[in-house]
């Protein structure tokens, strides 16, 4: 099983004077192994470090310690071959202000080898994105749509998306989720790392989920496994055997029902419940 994304002891220090709370690291140390074909939902509160983690994984930010690898190559020295297979849409859509959507796609076609313009145009039509308007005349939601269409245009093997659907309406979000898989031309499944606050959307499509808190990985687990086996039991005191203990609601512990059979009767947890438990 090849690893699409790998991080070893990835750490980013906090620049001096930024935060006054006692937090030594902005990120890390993080150890991560994401297999090929996984669709990973990156979940955490604001400021947990999701965007920072993505930028470190992509090599757009230099970690202070540790290293990250994408598709087998170190992120800080990606070759063109890997860059061709890489797609990224950031939180702020970084577009060419004076070009319209069609010209953006032409630029992508000139730089990436694998761009299929007709399917990109079809995707834009599905998302209700006008391709004739200049980028700086588009609304923020449309700009995000364009950024996402550009990220998908060259059928990347590894796709990193940072809050791609934050400004989209619900129908566009559904269409976007469909397009993530429907627009795959190659046989091998695509690896996707998506960070989003819209957990109900993520629940439908993820195969793994990564919970991030204060720059550290709290939980990285297959989502099916999490849904089937993770349960919350009331617990007044922290239990060393539990995955996580939360003080809210009189004390709850997150346990794996395979290890604690008595928890099997508890109701299952949705992604939002899990996020809440892990962050309190």
């Amino acid at each position: 099983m090849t690893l699409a994304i790998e991080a070893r002891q990835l750490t980013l220090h906090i620049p001096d004077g930024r935060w006054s709370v006692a937090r030594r690291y902005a990120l890390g140390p993080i150890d991560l192994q994401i297999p090929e074909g996984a669709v990973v939902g990156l979940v955490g509160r604001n400021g947990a470090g999701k965007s920072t983690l993505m930028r470190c994984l992509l090599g757009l930010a230099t970690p202070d310690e540790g290293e990250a690898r994408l598709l087998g190559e170190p992120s800080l020295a990606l070759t063109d071959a890997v860059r061709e297979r890489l797609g990224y849409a950031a939180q702020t859509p970084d577009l060419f202000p004076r070009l319209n959507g069609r010209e953006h796609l032409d630029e992508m076609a000139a730089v990436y080898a694998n761009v299929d313009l007709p399917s990109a145009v079809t995707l834009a039509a599905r998302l209700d994105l006008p391709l004739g308007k200049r980028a700086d005349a588009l609304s923020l939601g449309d700009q995000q749509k364009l950024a996402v269409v550009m990220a998908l245009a060259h059928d990347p093997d590894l796709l990193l998306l940072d809050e791609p659907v934050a400004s989209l309406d619900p129908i566009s979000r559904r269409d976007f989720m469909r397009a993530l898989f429907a627009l795959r031309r190659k046989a091998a499944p695509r690896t996707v790392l998506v960070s989003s606050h819209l957990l109900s959307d993520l629940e439908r499509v993820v195969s793994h989920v990564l919970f991030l808190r204060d720059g550290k990985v709290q939980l990285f687990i297959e989502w099916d496994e999490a849904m089937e086996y993770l349960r919350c039991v009331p617990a007044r005191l922290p239990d060393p055997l539990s995955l996580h203990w939360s003080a809210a609601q009189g004390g709850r512990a997150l346990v794996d029902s395979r290890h604690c059979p008595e928890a099997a009767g508890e109701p299952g947890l949705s992604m939002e419940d899990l996020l809440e438990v892990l962050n309190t």
Partner: protein
Amino acid sequence: MSSPQAFFDIQPQLATPIYRQVVEQVQRLVAGGQLGPGDELPSVRAVAERHAINPMTVSKAYSLLEAEGLLERRRGVGMVVAARAQPAAAGSDLLALLEPAIQALARQTRQLGIPPDQAVEALARALQSDEQDRP
């Protein structure tokens, strides 16, 4: 072609994983007779597209059902219901299908604080009346 009934009802907010929902629904449809031997199931891509879910989840469900022997893969057609007898046979299989409902009943009984034997009585009554209504 697959009938509209064969398009599943996926609810991600339920406590069961999506693949398990698909598995259980197929099992129920086959057990209930709505899917007979040789009936085609919708393709992985079609289901994923319809419900905006991950195709891997659907193919995981189909593989599990294939391993159970409920479905088989046919060249050029996709997944079809295996040609085996009506699965009224294994009682334990059917009981396993009832398991989620039983669990839910048990949980609600506990929450409402109803004594267990009263709940069992109510269940027996419900089953009896159901029997009488059946032709």
